[in-house]
């Protein structure tokens, strides 16, 4: 294993890490699970797909398939001392334009900052790449719950510490991200839509999401504990 200690001054540039002769070949940890979340929405979860990434996952529903890979925690080139890791998310899609994707990735960073223990990894950076393999849904807001789920699996696959298992749901063109058993709101995303009501009331949408949150969280926990 190639692990650098980022808390100390690094060795010379050409230094090679110690490799023990009887280092075991990494076993293939690809696990697959298919479950029925709602009656109409089945989700397929897989992890440990990309061998040269620290962690990876594929989450698939009928119209969406996302491949997420995590690289890190790896050392940053920053000259100043950073007491916390910096989180970076890059979305790659053929369907949506870049500025839209960057806005979503900014949002995802805000949400994941709430649960990833960034203070455990000083002087490091964690990069997440989300590739859109199947993108049949037209609204980006529909992808948010799947993105959160695939990021969580990939982060745990990379053995990065998280303080909570968070989840997202999309109801009425509104994506809601919840944590702490649904008691805490971590993120909310609502885009303008054609069927706009007179006054915007989000209380009911959030309450609906809180009801459904536990089942999606349970599914994620079952998948992780089976691995």
């Amino acid at each position, binding site marked *: 294993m190639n692990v650098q200690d980022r808390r100390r001054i690094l060795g010379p540039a050409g230094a090679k890490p110690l490799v023990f002769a009887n280092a075991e070949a990494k076993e293939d940890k690809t696990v697959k699970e298919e479950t029925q979340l709602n009656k109409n929405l089945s989700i397929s979860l897989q992890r440990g797909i990309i061998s040269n990434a620290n962690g990876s996952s594929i989450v698939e529903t009928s119209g969406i398939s996302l491949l997420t890979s995590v690289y890190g925690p790896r050392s940053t080139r920053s000259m100043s001392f950073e007491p916390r890791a910096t989180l970076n998310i890059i979305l790659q899609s053929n369907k949506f334009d*870049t500025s839209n994707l960057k806005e979503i990735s*900014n949002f995802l960073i805000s*949400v994941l900052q709430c649960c990833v223990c960034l203070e455990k990894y000083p002087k490091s950076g964690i990069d997440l790449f989300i590739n859109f393999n199947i993108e049949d849904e037209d609204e980006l807001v529909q992808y948010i719950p799947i993105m959160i789920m695939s990021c969580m699996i990939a982060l745990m696959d990379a053995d990065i510490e998280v303080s909570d298992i968070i989840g997202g749901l999309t109801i009425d063109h509104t994506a809601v991200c919840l944590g702490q058993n649904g008691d805490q*709101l971590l993120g909310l995303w609502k*885009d303008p839509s054609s069927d706009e009501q007179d006054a*915007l009331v989000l209380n009911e949408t959030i309450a609906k999401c809180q009801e459904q949150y536990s089942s999606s969280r349970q599914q994620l926990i079952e998948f992780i504990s089976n691995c």
Partner: protein
Amino acid sequence: MSLSIAEKSYLFDSLSSAQALRPDGRLPYQFRPIEIYTDFLPSSNGSSRIIASDGSECIISVKSKVVDHTVEKDLVQVDIDIAGERDDSILVESITSLFNKIIDTIDVSKLQLTQKYSFKIYIDVLVLSTYSYPVSLISFGIYSALNSTYLPKLISSFDDLEVEELPTFHDYDLVKLDVSPPLIFVLAIVGDNIFIDPAFNESKVANNGLIISWSQGKVIAPVRTMALNNTYVKGFKPSLVQEGIDLVNKYGQDIVNALV
């Protein structure tokens, strides 16, 4: 400028306590004083310069072009530049994307000239300096710039489908552009409290931020949360979203009245 751990802890405690006290003594719905100058660029159809009390400054220019609206669907375009940030940085791109989404809520029929042609409005924003999340400042600037925009007066006929003709304009007369531009409010959530228009030091200790759009007397989409710093970010009580929306609904009109 960065704050020490002790300063941050003091700010967080005073903002999150039951009787919250903001560092500059403002009320939860109160804005910092802003200065706005309009119509200062002679070569633009409309312009504004907005300066916040902390020295954040932003200039906005509105330019127009006649386009065939059957071909060109996007009649308002916002372009944002922030000094010291790359054009493809996540901050600039996400703010540009947010503004292009909210500007689509403008009634484009006001830009129509004839059955075939419309004005296309280009809004160019240059943020000269900024100390907190600049979205609110930019949206107030765009609001003032659009409200001071005058476009050439059409003198040819409206019906140009039968007889093909290009629109012609009056040599001197201008018509005031009458759109009601939407506004964006930034709110900071600290503990169980919520504040409009967080200053630099308040943003540094905010648990989360809320971006709320407002147009013609009511809150509209897009609404979203946004981390205002990267150390204090965490979840918050879900009921605070509605509290923030109610706050903007209640005071939005007063703020707009103060802008014009």
